[in-house]
């Protein structure tokens, strides 16, 4: 990979512009799989998906197929789903509970920690086979119930990596009475013919909704108004969000957008629960507020519900919305192909209607056939096709450049809500990852 030495990579990512090859060159993608996805902490899921010993689910770390499993000792292990013998995936894709992973090819079996347990025809080998296990991700850590792993032996701790973005997870978890969340209600898996970075660059982009989502904004404005208590529509939560996407420019400019040293970012100030979720006057929300206050006290409940971190990005593979309890994980498949898994989180000790709203929101806004997401996907694909142009080499990421503000807590804030600071932050850490050791 001598072709991509530090100087060359630094040429491609400049403060206010990025070269198109960062999104379209297969050689750069290969390097990303090694240096970004092979190194950074990646979010894999939530502990509710592996509650009991032997519970497992399959997923990916970059392109590595992995199994996330609860070990007998209670720890969460992440095993590369590839047999030590001749390479078959040992575990079919999906989820379940198992004592051992048995390879379908020649029957080698592995325990929940990936250790080789037994094999047929063992006498065919002279030496000891103790080291032949499933490769395990060297580092696994949890933050507030969310499972992260890194394929690198060493690097920053998870808490250092998350840094100020811990606040986003705290917001997500604190909102659940008793801190109890579970992944449930189905998983949308939407794919698009575009680079993985396009999703992460979209979710904090306050300049796009008025354009990309013009059709759903218009339709939502013509939708029945959210019903009064007792006469709500199933889709009110989604209509609220879609209308909010059409907020005036001044609202978007006033939104706070913050980034962290590791490329994470979040939008604040945009939505309060009144504008959005079920409305603060709503009896279901009042009941939820009461259940939260019963756990943490009224003052703390007020504080928790007063936090308005809206979309959060955890670079390089995650985005979530704490008020809607939607979490998305992006899996890069090729330089121009990505798939995003969208999960709903249920607060276990909240009124059932709170989760029904989450499901309705997922269906109408984030789902594969939804009114909102489909237009984002269309635009990602058009962007990717645009990169095939050799006549124009650069993308501009300069909105608000030079007006970023360093905050006392170590975050950096965009001068206005539509600043492209979040892309600049992602590109800065991308360059760090890509040139580490180069």
């Amino acid at each position: 990979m001598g072709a991509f030495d530090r100087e060359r990579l630094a040429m491609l990512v400049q403060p206010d512009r990025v070269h198109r090859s960062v999104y379209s060159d297969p050689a750069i993608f290969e390097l990303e799989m090694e240096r970004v996805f092979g190194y950074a902490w990646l979010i894999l899921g939530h502990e509710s998906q592996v509650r009991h010993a032997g519970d497992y689910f399959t997923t990916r770390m970059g392109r590595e197929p992995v199994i996330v499993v609860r070990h007998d000792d209670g720890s969460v292990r992440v095993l590369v789903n590839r047999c030590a013998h001749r390479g078959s995936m040992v575990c079919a894709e999906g989820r379940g509970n198992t004592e051992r992973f048995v390879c379908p090819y020649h029957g080698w079996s592995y325990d929940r920690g990936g250790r080789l347990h037994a094999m047929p025809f063992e006498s065919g080998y002279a030496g000891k086979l103790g080291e032949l296990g499933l490769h395990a991700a060297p580092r696994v850590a949890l933050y507030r119930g969310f499972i992260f792993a890194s394929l690198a032996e060493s690097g920053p701790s998870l808490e250092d990596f998350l840094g100020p973005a811990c606040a986003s997870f705290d917001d997500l978890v604190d909102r659940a009475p008793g801190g109890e969340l579970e992944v449930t209600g189905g998983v949308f898996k939407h794919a698009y013919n575009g680079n993985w970075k396009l999703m992460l660059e979209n979710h904090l982009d306050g300049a796009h909704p008025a354009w990309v989502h013009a059709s759903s904004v218009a339709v939502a404005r013509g939708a029945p108004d959210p019903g009064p208590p007792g006469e709500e529509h199933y889709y009110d939560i989604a209509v609220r969000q879609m209308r909010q996407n059409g907020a005036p420019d001044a609202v978007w400019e006033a939104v706070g957008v913050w980034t962290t040293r590791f490329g994470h970012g979040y939008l604040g100030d945009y939505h309060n629960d009144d504008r959005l979720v079920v409305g603060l006057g709503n009896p279901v929300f009042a009941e939820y507020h009461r259940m939260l206050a019963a756990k943490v006290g009224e003052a703390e409940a007020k504080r928790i519900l007063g936090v308005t971190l809206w979309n959060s990005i955890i670079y390089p593979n995650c985005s979530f919305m704490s008020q809607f309890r939607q979490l998305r994980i992006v899996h890069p498949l090729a330089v121009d192909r990505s798939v995003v898994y969208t999960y709903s989180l249920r607060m276990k000790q909240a009124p059932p209607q709170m989760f029904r709203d989450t499901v309705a929101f997922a269906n109408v806004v984030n789902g594969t056939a939804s009114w909102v997401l489909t237009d984002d996907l269309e635009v990602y694909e058009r962007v990717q096709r645009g990169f095939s142009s050799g006549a124009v080499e650069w993308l501009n990421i300069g909105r608000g450049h030079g007006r970023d503000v360093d905050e006392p807590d170590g975050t950096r804030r965009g001068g206005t809500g539509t600043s492209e600071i979040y892309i600049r932050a992602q590109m800065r850490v991308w360059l760090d990852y890509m040139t580490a050791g180069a």
Partner: protein
Amino acid sequence: MPGEIEQFLYHEAHLLDTQRFEEWLDLFTEDATYWVPLEQNQSDPVETSSIIHDDRTLLELRVKQARHPRAHARTPMARTVHQVGNVRLLGESDGELRVASTLVLVEFRAERQRVWGGLVEHRLRSAGATFRISHKRIDLVNSEGELDGIAILF
């Protein structure tokens, strides 16, 4: 009339394939539901997500979105062929016919062609010489798969 159920389903498919979506909407009763489950054998549309779970109002808004000049994923709308087959009358209850069929759908848009397969159930109410749809459920064979964005009606 023999075959009148089949004729009705073919007519519905034809309206979709000729993009007469407003006329297609008129086939549905005011209290109709249109459901494309996300999970196989899904029984619950409320606490489990769906690819589409629309009441009549949402279905109407969905068609309105398709007509909006800046509906990027729907401009132009994909061309489709809905091939309806294996029509079976499952039974009749509460004045509604329950009809099963299979759907093979070919979709073309932006230099890409996709094939869909689904098991379909209609609930039909008699309306003079024809029917109205009170419920339509489409179980896609790949509903749990990794799918590119969906901007068509099944």
